[in-house]
């Protein structure tokens, strides 16, 4: 009994837990949060560890010495803007289920939660200057040739997934296609339909996602904030982050 108790205690010692959040997390929509369990011990593998995050349990049967294992859990965050990921705890019945030992893990990690996309009328405004956001054929899009293969980031359409390659790897692989040349569009938050700011932000989130997917270079005008038009995943995250934080700085200051 004593030996099993000591082993059970050691099984919880010197372990690290890390969150691997996806690039895109939307307000109120379920998303897969990556969890990495790291073993910092020198002689005892991590055995039968259950990680509890937001009432979900993820089971790690074994993590070897100095190694780490990754799994994911479905979580839903509510409210746009900067948010803290939920607290986590680990527990284990190891070695003989006489005791279930548990330990809270302190992980302070903030993520940006984007406004939930909500469909609206397709309102477009072509950038009159045309100088900014000029497209080049190597930029990411969804209609041209394959530029390269990359890991799935969470926002790519189903048709972009490269199933054959995925079958040979542990992770989902997506085809990055080149974009067809289109005229830049500046999304003006003030001109979007809707009775309140939150609804307009959700419409904006929808339009940004949809236009970028269709290969349109998209920029943003929101109050004093102006972002130049562009394409690709980075531009999408830039715009969505601007929408997520919009109005929150003014409230706090």
């Amino acid at each position, binding site marked *: 009994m*004593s*030996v*099993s108790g000591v*082993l059970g205690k050691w099984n919880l010692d010197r372990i690290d837990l890390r969150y691997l959040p996806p690039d895109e997390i939307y307000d109120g929509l379920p998303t897969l949060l990556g969890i990495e369990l790291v073993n910092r011990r020198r002689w*005892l*593998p991590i*055995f*039968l560890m*259950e990680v509890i995050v937001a009432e979900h349990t993820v*089971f790690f*049967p*074994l993590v*070897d010495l100095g190694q780490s294992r990754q799994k994911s859990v479905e979580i839903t965050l509510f409210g746009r803007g900067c948010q803290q990921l939920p607290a986590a705890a680990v527990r284990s*019945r*190891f*070695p*003989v*289920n006489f005791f279930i030992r548990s330990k809270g893990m302190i992980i302070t990690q903030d993520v940006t939660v984007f406004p939930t996309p909500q469909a609206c009328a397709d309102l477009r405004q072509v950038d009159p200057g045309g100088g900014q956001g000029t497209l080049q054929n190597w930029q990411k899009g969804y209609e041209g040739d394959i530029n390269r293969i990359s890991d799935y980031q969470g926002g790519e359409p189903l048709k972009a997934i490269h199933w054959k390659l995925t*079958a040979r790897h542990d992770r989902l692989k997506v085809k990055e296609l080149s974009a067809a040349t289109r005229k830049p569009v500046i999304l003006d938050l003030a001109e979007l339909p809707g009775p309140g700011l939150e609804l307009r932000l959700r419409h904006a989130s929808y339009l940004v996602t949809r236009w970028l997917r269709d290969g349109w270079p998209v920029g943003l005008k929101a109050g004093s904030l102006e972002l130049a038009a562009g394409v690709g995943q980075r531009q999408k995250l830039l715009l969505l982050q601007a929408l997520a934080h919009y109005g929150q700085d003014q409230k706090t200051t």
Partner: protein
Amino acid sequence: MVRIKRLLDLFSGVVALLSMGPVLAYLDRLLLPVVLLAIPAGYWCDRREQYPLPTWLATLVALSGMFFYALQITRAEVAIPVVHAMVVLLTVRLLTPKAGRDYLQIFVLALFILAGSSLIHLEISFVVYLVLLVFSVTLGLVFLTVYVTDQKLVMSRQDLMKLVKVGFVIPAISLLLMMIFFVVLPRTRHPLWNFLNPSDKGVVGLAETVQPGSFAKISGTKELAFRAEGPELAPEDRYWRALVLNQSKEGRWVRSDPPGEGAPRIEGPAPVIFMIYPEPRSDRYLMTLDRATLVTGVRHEQTVDQMYIARSALDRRFRFEVRASPGARLRVAGNVNREFYLQTPAEISQRMRQVSADIHDGSIDVTVRIDALAEFFRDQELSYAEDDLPSGPDPIDAFLFVNKRGYCEFFASAYMTLARLAGIPARLVGGYYGGDYNPMGGYYLVTEATAHVWVEVLAGDNSWQRIDPSQWATNAATTLGARDRDQLSALRQLADSLNYHWVQAVVVFDLGQQMSLFREAGDRLRSLRTLRAPDGWWKVAGGLLVGVTLLAGVLSLRRKSKEARLLEEFRSRVKKRYGHEVLSPGSGLAELGDQLDNENCREFARIYYGAIFRDRLLTRPERVRLKGLLRRI
């Protein structure tokens, strides 16, 4: 890849086999083949997930078996029927579907059966079975923990070996600790479980003076004074002697070194032997049954007045043996210094002097005087009491003539004073009277509440004779002998038995006994080599069976998985039919099917990938289908 449930099933069989090994030779002829068949059959049923007995029938069989063997239990034979009943339960459990707690039941039953086997026949092979069973059960518990956490878990062989290694560490360290505790525990003074509830008990001791009247009320403490293991005694023989007081000093009876006497001779019934387990105490007086003839097991000195004093402090737990003749007389062969035992207190009331003078003048025969003194005490109608006690300048006089109530010190002091005044040499003896006999442990439990004082007088035949004046109290039957009676409930008896056995088996278990245990084990090992064949073949067969099962288990773990074997056969058949060059290292099954334009290969790939890419093992129908396809390639 290894499915954790498969391992658990295998270990259930191994554990069952190890537990039944030592009892195989004692099983009924009817039960034996069933048991031997049930172990492999249970494993086979677990693999097929088909069981011969529905749950209701299994329960009925188990209950019937238990009832059948329960009827065979007699006072003379308990172990064999109980072991049979447990074997029936285990057999039924092996042949029924198993969830988490069912495996636990198998492990527990296996341990009980092995423990039960030691009651039937104990020899050195038991230790071998015990060690193997401890290892197997611990590994089984580790696998069960994995199974409880994720019932469908499939582990790689490398991961499994890591789990097994740690699983082996637990019993290995436990056995090592057992060896250390084997040496350490006999030297602990208190039961280990006392750390949960530390005792605030102080060290007890007998009062070395007797001074009645110093308290208006006394209350006996229920603290344990000692335990005495031996036969049950008649109430009049339960006098435990410790201390003799012989001189009066400033109103108190104290001890002074007695003058030398002639050689004593004990005259009385045949001696009985008691093993005494005293609690740690501040004095050095050894309690003996009155009268002791021999004390062994502790370094001590014996005084002329039959006191036994230890040479070293009694502040630890130990035991010593006393040989005693209860109720015997102590005849002194030579002269006794009568003047020493006739000294009286300085202040004695006139009434007491008158009573003693009457007795003294009544006869010159000491025996007559003793009888007269007894008569006086009875006539006074004194009562035994522990409160509202006499006090004042002469409490003894108040006790005898006014209050007429007091406890043993009043009775003994009054008697002693009157006896000495009447010319009867006398001395006070302190110790304990009574004690509760614990039939579970076969010992007397004597508490401080039973501390007692009585008197010894030198009778006419030059022998010291015990007289307990407290017994003449009108209420002696209900008070004196019953002082501690209400304390021992059945539960307390049980708890005290546990403590007693702890002290007996662990605390006072010294190195000498440990060594003799080793020697005994060695003797048994030697006798094992000379086992006759008819007795031994069961053990040999049992050992072989265990060995073969373990080997089969290890081999089945080392074997490639069914999936890997099927894939190997697929590649072998493709190579045989289409040639070596078609099998490039990176080619997948589906690509191969397309390349060869073989529908059987395509279907094989579809079924195989269907399982592998869903992170599961192939089902039995799938394996049958794949084998059919392989034959057609």
